[in-house]
């Protein structure tokens, strides 16, 4: 077994654009669930909409800032559409509606009626919308090696996307930290605990929930852009499993913490790769083929999530004391 290669790959995974994208998506979900108690089971829908909004407007020839605004606008509209009918109702309604709405986005995106716009189920090729992003890079073309990690400077799976992705993650953490420790965040926390109590104190609960839903969704949409920049927009790779992974990451790292989503994403993707690599080089192919090892990896994810919720519901960074208190 080649440990050097495996560990290099794992370290690479820790800083991969995908890891950053998931961290960002989980930060968005943390605004929903961790700060406000909203059950959004459609974060992948926000991500896919962001990806479509960015890619389609770039392909249409819009500059990158306009494409970014389109992605954000898509998330705002999606958040409003989901929130207006559900946020006045009990929490479970939002959960059901978000699952369904994210699926609707995916199914509409892959429908052949929209082939000209979304490329239907085969999606949009990365090269058709990457250029304006890569053109912003200050680096010369070529490859750079830092320690054992070597990537191209600008194209596709580059240092440039890594830098932008992780800077965005850092900014999102800063934003969440600032908001969480502000009077606004205090109102959200109150809503998470008991929204009638907060209502009785004169706060417009509906407006706060809407703001949280939209803000977390916008962060999700930006995550979607980071997710698709090194690859393609493929609706079927951004469905329910993606939402499920984002939830696992959030719970793994610790909901309602600032760095939980980041730590969660790194550990999730790092551990998954480690398990799969080790199995590939130790388990004989007759016992488990590559395909099965891939699936086994996801089984481990599922079991981990279950164990986590049972034995460490506060996640890695969560406050045990806080969670130990019976909410009602």
């Amino acid at each position: 077994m080649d440990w050097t290669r495996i560990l290099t790959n794992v370290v690479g995974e820790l800083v991969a654009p995908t890891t950053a994208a998931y961290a960002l998506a989980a930060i968005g979900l943390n605004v929903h669930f961790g700060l406000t108690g909203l059950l959004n089971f459609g974060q992948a829908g926000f991500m896919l909409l962001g990806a479509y909004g960015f890619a389609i407007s770039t392909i249409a020839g819009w500059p990158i800032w306009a494409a970014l605004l389109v992605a954000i606008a898509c998330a705002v509209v999606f958040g409003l559409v989901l929130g207006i009918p559900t946020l006045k109702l009990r929490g479970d309604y939002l959960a059901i509606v978000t699952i369904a709405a994210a699926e609707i986005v995916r199914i509409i995106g892959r429908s052949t009626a929209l082939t000209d716009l979304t490329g239907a189920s085969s999606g949009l090729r990365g090269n058709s919308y990457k250029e304006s992003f890569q053109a912003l890079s200050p680096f010369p073309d070529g490859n750079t090696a830092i320690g054992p990690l070597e990537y191209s400077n600008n194209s596709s799976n580059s240092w440039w996307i890594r830098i932008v992705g992780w800077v965005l993650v850092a900014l999102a953490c800063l934003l969440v930290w600032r908001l969480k420790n502000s009077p606004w965040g205090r109102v959200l926390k109150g809503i998470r605990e008991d929204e009638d109590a907060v209502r009785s104190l004169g706060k417009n609960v509906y407006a706060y929930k809407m703001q949280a839903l939209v803000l977390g969704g916008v962060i999700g949409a930006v995550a979607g852009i980071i997710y698709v920049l090194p690859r393609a927009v493929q609706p079927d790779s951004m469905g329910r499993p993606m939402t499920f992974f984002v939830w696992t990451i959030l719970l793994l790292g610790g909901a309602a913490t600032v760095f939980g989503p980041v730590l969660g994403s790194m550990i999730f993707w790092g551990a998954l790769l480690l398990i799969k690599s080790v199995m590939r080089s130790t388990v004989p192919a007759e016992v488990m083929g590559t395909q099965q090892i891939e699936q086994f990896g996801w089984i481990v994810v599922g079991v981990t999530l279950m164990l986590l919720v049972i034995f460490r519901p506060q996640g890695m960074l969560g406050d045990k004391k806080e969670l130990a208190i019976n909410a009602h």
Partner: protein
Amino acid sequence: MPTDRSHRQPDEAGAPTTHGATAVAVPSRADELRDRFAGLDRVPGVPKPDPIVVADHVTRHFGGMTAVDVDHLEVERGAITALIGPNGAGKTTLFNLLTGFDKPSTGTWTFEGRSLSGTPAAKVSRSGMVRTFQLTKALSRMTVIENMRLGATGQPGENLGAALIPGLWRSREREITAQAEELLARFKLDTKRDDFAGSLSGGQRKLLEMARALMSKPTMVMLDEPMAGVNPALTQSLLGHIQSLRDEGTTVLFVEHDMHMVRHISDWVVVMAEGRIVAEGPPQSVMNDQAVIDAYLGAHHGTDLGDDSLLDEAEPAPGATDTTPEGTR
């Protein structure tokens, strides 16, 4: 009876005031109200000299069942009005309607002359009518001081945009914190300042909820069974707090199903049974009212309502009754 110090109310700026000779002011306010109420008819829906709440034809049906059917009700400004009645009389439902937590089947009402029917709960609260809940809603996983801060109004940092710039809300936050600490001291919760609200006892949570409601300096507080589940030692100081609120000019409407709890502190008593108001009057006379005795018959068969043994029955610790009465009045 609570000491003078505990009766003190922080003034508008959050600084303590001496508030004159409180010990003298307490009885005189009660006496003044007694005189004001003395001339009123003792009938349901009787008009008050200076009503702050006026409700008309308020009904609420649940399926075929009528939970509230109030023809006319006026609540006097600056007085302690007790809303009593057996369990299931519709007291909580009426509270929910008046505070916007439930929608009536019919009816209208005004608060300080402005119509409040159909107004959402948060707006009702902002207009100065703040309530507490029968089942305490302390925000368990927030600290006591954070609970208190949440009750404050006029914090610009509660807007998403302003929240990002601490310079815009830090100074208000300091004022709010000072005000919260004073109230906590007054309610003897200051030692619990940084504990999670969920770790408090039932009675302390009731106190916290009441203190939190006062953070917005409401013109009227509506307390739904503030004494329920509170241990007898705290009951005494709770009653004291309610009286001192009144003495500072706040209107208090509070629900209680045991009339002995209210006898000594309320200026006026409204009795509900099966959704209707069956009697109104000063506390002493209302207890002898035939309609009231009838209303309570289901719960306490044939017992004299003035009999303090009823209180023993309702309260696990009978010692409480001995300390409640005369001095407080």
